[in-house]
């Protein structure tokens, strides 16, 4: 076993220890520990990715207890790619929102904020890498608790209420997930994903316990759908994303919900088995709710008069896209969904971070009327917001175009679902264009004698560098998407 095989485990443990150490440090030191941690984790993920690209996936046995008893970590191309992406986006989101964090959060709580992000990163990495269902459940709860802390670190009535609503929905979801996996454990007698899949395949071949198996699959799927804010379960989302501090909003929308979706992908492929999951027809329900989310999320976003809440509602629509890809029930649909996870993570965090620059030069107001002409006052934020909007609408050169293209290709391959998928994809794109282009036109409408002053590059150099990095990331995903798509295809094939 090569030394690289230790890296996934080391990165999870590093995050946990960094969280513990940071809780005793002053806020400035905690911030640097967090930055160093993210940098180290990015490097470790790069090593893991290159290793898995060369040598294929590997299983790391914790404590050297063999398969049916011990706990395992599994790393393949897809896991390493996700981990790399999550680390980069979290690093950029934290840097981009740092000045707001200092303004909005009281001095003695900033250290705690970094403790929470360390723990959040550990749970995300564990959700990505773990090969054990119950470990996944425990880290789902850690993820929920730290995400709740990120929402309410900025203390006002709205964020606390949003945190309570978030907790309630999350707890309903994790209750269902727990019940589902307990049932699955009773049926199969295993907690490790690969062992469960063997037993489930035997059960399906025998035709035994079909109803309990379907109930368990439904409970786990619906639980994770609730947690990742699929359309009818999104009531908590606009407040949580709209009023928390901007780094939290970026991290929550682009990483936390993706962590749950990635766990669902692992459950579909590595726990149940793609074919058996496909035969249960649950994917039709996911498909339906995905389509509804795409339309209703966009409609809510059009009605919104607040830029942050508009971006939050746009997230609902984008999560709908991802579930629509699941609902196709084909390899191509899954690839499109995973690519859209990456593309949405890169774009949505960019939009949140850019929007804060625009509101900063508009007297802190988030209403569209005050934002008029803010693209001239903060040039970098204006350009970045435009790039994000174009990417969301699906203009070529940017990552959103590639994911829309992949979704359309996947839809064409699936005859039964081609028509509804393509129609809703078209409608949703038009709706996206309406509300994003409305915003872009608004921020580039010149106003005479505006009461607000602009900023120069010098005043916001750090923030502008982060924005430039976001644009580069987005364009890289859009222009050279083929290697990423190949990696995703290979990773999904390794899951089979």
């Amino acid at each position, binding site marked *: 076993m090569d030394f690289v095989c230790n890296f996934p485990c080391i990165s999870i443990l590093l995050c946990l220890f960094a969280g513990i150490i940071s809780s005793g440090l002053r806020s400035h030191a905690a911030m640097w520990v967090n930055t160093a941690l993210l940098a180290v984790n990015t490097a470790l993920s790069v090593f893991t990715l290159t290793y898995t690209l060369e040598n294929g996936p590997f299983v790391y046995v914790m404590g050297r207890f063999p398969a049916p008893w011990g706990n395992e970590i599994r790393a393949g191309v897809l896991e390493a790619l996700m981990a790399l992406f999550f680390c980069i986006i979290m690093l950029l989101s934290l840097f981009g929102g740092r000045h707001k964090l200092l303004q909005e959060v009281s001095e003695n709580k900033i250290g705690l904020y970094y403790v929470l992000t360390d723990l959040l990163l550990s749970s995300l990495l564990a959700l990505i890498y773990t090969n054990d269902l*119950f470990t996944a*459940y*425990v880290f789902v*709860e850690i993820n*929920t*608790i730290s995400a*709740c802390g990120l929402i*309410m670190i900025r203390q*006002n*009535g*709205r964020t*606390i*209420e949003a*945190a*309570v*609503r978030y*907790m*309630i929905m999350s*707890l*309903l979801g994790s*209750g*269902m997930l*727990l*019940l589902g996996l*307990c049932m699955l*454990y*009773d049926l199969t007698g295993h*907690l490790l994903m690969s062992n469960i899949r063997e037993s489930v395949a035997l059960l399906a071949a025998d035709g035994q316990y079909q109803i309990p198996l379907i109930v368990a699959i439904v409970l786990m799927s619906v639980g994770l759908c609730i947690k990742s804010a699929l359309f009818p379960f999104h009531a908590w989302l606009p407040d949580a994303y709209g*009023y928390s501090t901007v780094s939290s909003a970026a991290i929550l929308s682009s990483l936390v919900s993706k962590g749950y979706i990635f766990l669902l992908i692992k459950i579909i492929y590595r726990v149940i088995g793609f074919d058996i999951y496909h035969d249960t027809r649950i994917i039709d329900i996911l498909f339906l709710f995905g389509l509804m989310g795409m339309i209703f999320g966009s409609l809510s976003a059009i009605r919104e008069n607040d830029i942050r809440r508009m971006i939050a509602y746009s997230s609902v629509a984008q999560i709908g896209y991802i579930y629509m890809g699941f609902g196709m029930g084909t390899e191509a649909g899954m690839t499109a969904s995973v690519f859209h996870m990456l593309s949405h993570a890169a774009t949505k965090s960019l939009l949140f971070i850019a929007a804060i620059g625009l509101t900063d030069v508009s007297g802190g107001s988030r209403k569209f009327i005050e934002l008029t002409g803010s693209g001239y006052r903060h040039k970098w934020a204006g350009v970045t917001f435009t790039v994000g909007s174009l990417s969301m609408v699906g203009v070529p050169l940017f990552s959103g175009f590639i994911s829309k293209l992949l979704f359309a290709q996947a839809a064409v391959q699936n005859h039964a679902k081609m028509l509804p998928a393509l129609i809703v994809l078209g409608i949703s794109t038009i709706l996206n264009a309406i509300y994003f282009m409305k915003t872009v036109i608004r921020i580039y409408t010149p106003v005479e004698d505006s009461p607000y002053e602009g900023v120069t590059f010098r005043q916001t150099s750090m923030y502008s560098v982060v924005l430039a990095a976001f644009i580069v990331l987005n364009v890289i995903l859009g222009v050279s998407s083929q290697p990423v798509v190949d990696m995703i295809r290979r990773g999904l094939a390794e899951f089979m």
Partner: protein
Amino acid sequence: MGAHLLANYGEAVAMVLFGIGFCNLLLQPNLIKKIIGLNIMDTAVYLFLAEKGYIAGHTAPIVVDGVQSVDAYINPIPSGLVLTGIVVSVSVTALMLALTIRLYNRYHTLNLDEISRQLKKEGL
């Protein structure tokens, strides 16, 4: 069907309790009642695990007289899962209670709908 239900009445009760807890957590407007619902829901899962983990006539898996046969002991993993689950649910309950105290101090009510109404009035 009926005979199965009677034979597995523990599991059936656990499912009914889970439903009660789930509905309370989802539908009650009162925050404390929501938290009670959460605890009922989690406890129902532990009851389900305990029922499934127990085999009549078998004892706890601690070897004392050198008997190592599988038929003598129950599987210890469900009990371990219950313990882990209890730890998770305690911490989540503590967090929810802390949030409830915060909201109560601010709005002097435990009714979540009422709090939302007051927030709209604040127009923040």
